[in-house]
């Protein structure tokens, strides 16, 4: 089954709460997040691969009142196969 990244991100953020903090994985996931709607509470990565989940953890520990159900998304997709390859989505 092929995962449509843009549709998946749009679905995840369809009813986005005002205070939701989102940290995408670098690369395509960042563009997917932009496509779903720019927001001051997005923190876009274009490098530092593998950092999204831990940035989300540091942020969540520093802002415990905002901890749930906010999302740090790290979505790596193998473009050749269209499969979710590595980190999927992490909910904190």
């Amino acid at each position, binding site marked *: 089954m092929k995962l449509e990244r843009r549709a998946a991100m749009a679905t995840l953020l369809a009813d986005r709460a005002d205070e939701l903090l989102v*940290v995408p994985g670098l690369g395509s996931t960042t563009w997917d997040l932009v496509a779903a709607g720019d927001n001051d509470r997005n*923190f876009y*990565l274009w*490098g*530092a*691969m*593998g*950092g*999204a*989940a*831990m*940035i*989300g*953890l*540091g*942020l*969540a*520990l*520093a*802002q415990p009142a905002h901890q749930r159900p906010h999302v740090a998304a790290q979505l790596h997709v193998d473009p050749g196969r269209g499969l979710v390859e590595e980190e999927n989505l992490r909910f904190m």
Partner: protein
Amino acid sequence: MTEQADWPDRLYDTFKRADIRQVAYVPDAGHARLIDRCRADPQIRDVVLTTEEEGVALAGGAWLGGERAALLMQSSGLGNCVNMLSLARICRFPLLMLITMRGEWEEFNPWQQPMGSIIDDVLKLCEAEIYRVRTPEEVAGAAERAVRCAFGDERITALVLSQQLIGKKVWTK
């Protein structure tokens, strides 16, 4: 504990004065006492890492959330962090790293030498400010200056603890 041997407590005191609220680490004999002090402190969230680079990202997230973090590692761990330091460099995040040296003095493990021998060069290439400590008497002052550099100047800052310093605690009975 003698004045000579309690230098990790000076690091902990510095953390408290600086209001460090998140401390990330992998298990390390050289940092063991500081880790124990942090774990016993309900005001500090200790985060165990699987690789040191995760701590660079954690510290960035903490800063975004309004808290100060510190990252503890051995010299070998710095090599694992190089790409993740891009986050601190691009975003101008402060980053306080405490690095216990290996491979430079009475080292029993030859695998520690390759990374230990290039620590200063790697730190400089990554635009980090280096504060090197060789004796217990230097610890408190250097730690204070490192904190000011990291969070005052918003720099990547490494407090490098020489193996001579650590050796007195870890390998001398």
